[in-house]
């Protein structure tokens, strides 16, 4: 697909926001690569920078308060940060598209869903009105909306939450993008509807061969869907691993903490959940050392000195931690 085989290369990306209280360091230098057809999961809790880093890829960081302060985002060899607004508009929606958590507020309430899908295919694919309508019906059919000829005329409020999210997905895949960013696509949906939507995304990924970045707070969702996982905390990637490796041998204390804090559907009920004490740090005055240190059960003096680099210290994959959680010893 691309010259060098890599679809997306994010390198040392940092995003900050100016607020009255001070500068919020939302993303603090993250790097990852994505090949065509890959699926990457970005996992973390609210405020960890998982959404902001993806908005940066789409060129949607709100100015003037927010800005990309360093790094690069190379998409098919082109740095998206150097691209002007018009060219970005050509890429956005056509080559990279995005779906959001809340479908109701992402759809325009005063236009029928069909018309909103038509808008994007007419703009990007140059279809005429009747071709666009046919395409919209076809797309709604692809995402499993029953009676699509009728549904194209529906307004967003006439559809259920699951249907709205499918309409959003229809819009997102309308130009067969190379990359789909799904930001908490199922968080607002019920669990049986979540299963429908995830199944649909997996099927579309296989059929269209598009790469997917799935942003979620739920580790379990990533387990069944992604090839690789980046775990984020306080704007840093703290662990980056193939999905099987991450779940078989989690190495960062935060990843471990997250896994043990969630009850499982199969687990022993008499066991108490282990909780992570305290709460996530304030991104305005981040401490000098590892941002997880104040909550970490393995913390050492050295952790407060500086943020450890994200590197493979014999764990088999990159981890931003100087302690081996299996032995408790320094690496």
């Amino acid at each position, binding site marked *: 697909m691309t010259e060098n085989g890599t679809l997306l290369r994010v390198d040392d990306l940092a995003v900050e926001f100016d607020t009255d209280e001070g500068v919020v360091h939302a993303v603090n230098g993250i790097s990852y690569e994505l090949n065509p057809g890959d699926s990457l999961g970005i996992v973390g809790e609210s405020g960890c920078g998982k959404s902001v880093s993806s908005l940066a890829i789409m060129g949607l960081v709100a100015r003037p308060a927010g800005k990309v302060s360093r790094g690069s985002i190379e998409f098919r060899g082109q740095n998206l940060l150097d691209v002007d607004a018009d060219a970005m508009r050509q890429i956005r929606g056509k080559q990279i598209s995005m779906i959001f958590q809340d479908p109701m507020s992402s759809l325009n309430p005063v236009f029928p869903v069909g018309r909103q899908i038509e808008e994007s295919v007419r703009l990007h694919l140059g279809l005429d009105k009747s071709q666009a309508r046919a395409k919209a019906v076809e797309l709604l059919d692809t995402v499993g909306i029953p009676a699509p000829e009728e549904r194209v005329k529906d307004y967003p409020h006439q559809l259920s939450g699951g249907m709205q999210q499918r309409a959003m997905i229809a819009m997102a895949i309308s130009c067969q993008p190379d990359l789909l960013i799904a930001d908490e696509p199922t968080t607002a949906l*019920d669990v*049986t509807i979540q299963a429908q939507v995830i199944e649909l995304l997996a099927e579309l990924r296989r059929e269209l061969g598009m790469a997917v970045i799935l942003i979620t707070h*739920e580790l379990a969702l990533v*387990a069944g869907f992604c090839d690789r996982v980046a775990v984020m905390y306080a704007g840093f990637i703290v662990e980056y691993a193939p999905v099987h490796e991450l779940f078989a041998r989690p190495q960062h204390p935060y990843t471990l903490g997250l896994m043990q804090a969630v*009850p499982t559907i199969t*687990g022993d009920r008499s066991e108490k*959940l*282990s909780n*992570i004490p305290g*709460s996530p740090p304030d991104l305005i005055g981040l401490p000098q050392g590892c941002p997880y240190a104040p909550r970490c059960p393995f913390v050492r003096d050295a952790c407060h000195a500086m943020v450890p680099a994200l590197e493979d210290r014999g764990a088999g994959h990159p981890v931003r931690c100087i302690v081996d959680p299996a032995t408790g010893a320094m690496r």
Partner: protein
Amino acid sequence: MSVEAQPAPETAAGSNGALLDVKHLVKHFPVTRGALIRRHAGWVRAVDDVSFSIEAGETLGLVGESGCGKTTTGNAVMQLEVPTSGEVVFEGQNLTRLKTGAQRRARRRMQMIFQDPYGSLNPRMSVGKIIEEPMMVHRLYESRQDRRSRVQEILELVGLSRTQAARYPHEFSGGQRQRIAAARSLAVEPSFIVCDEPVSALDVSIQAQIINLLQDLQQRLGVAYLFIAHDLKVVRHISHRVAVMYLGKLVEVTNSDTLYERPLHPYTRALLSAVPVADPVIEAKRKRIILPGDVPSPVNPPSACRFHPRCPWAQERCKTEEPLLTETGDGHAVACHFWREIEDSGGVPPVTVTEALRGGEARSD
């Protein structure tokens, strides 16, 4: 007065010894049309003939998807919504027949924790005042001094510090606010607390803190919970028994331990199979039961078994005859005509994932 568990003198047993006994609870909301002349246009059957009981010190989990009536059930139990019919017997008193004053006195022993820790605390009151207010309403302590020291005891009980009584809700994080909500509910020494999605607005690392707190409080004070949530993992973890609700009806009630091992109702099976498991090896092998379509509207619920339009095992009988919630042994109850046949067949649905995803019969052409 001590904070630890003590036998409540006024604890009278319900008719069958349960702390709370809900019998044939019904809550219908009228639907009206027209702006000036309001015409009655039907009923939202939010809760339709629901019965369950809760023992002292027990947690019953109530799980279901949005719109299934679980929150309305909680509100109707608390008498925050006047039930259309049915009985709520709490500590031997039928709350639905009491007058306002008597009801308020009876309700002291039952409290509620809400989903939204931002919306359920008065932003203009200090935390100390918030916890003190229910004590004043129920005239629990003689002097202000006693109330204040009790407030401080309770703050420590829920893992906050005494000095935080002077602070205001906006100074606290979501998890801490949920601790304040718990403290407020404990102020009047309840024997029963309705927890309506108490952790769903919180991040996972904070969820665990609150779940552990609720379990600790139960062990120390012996309170019973009706734990309402959509997250099956959380409900199963915290509850002794779980009731599964679909479109205003209970479809299955069982022990939490047997819930995963032996689900009987097709809806419970689908719910369980939809929960993602944090293990890529298991995920790769799992077969999901994908339900077609959405939850129908409770205004015109499907006939007979309300689950039949989405059920992969549905047969003619399901459209004409309503299955009642019946005991199958060991306190396990299910509302399905064919649970035995489904269990014997191994629980594999006769409809494939793709068929289901495409909307079942709607797309069979």
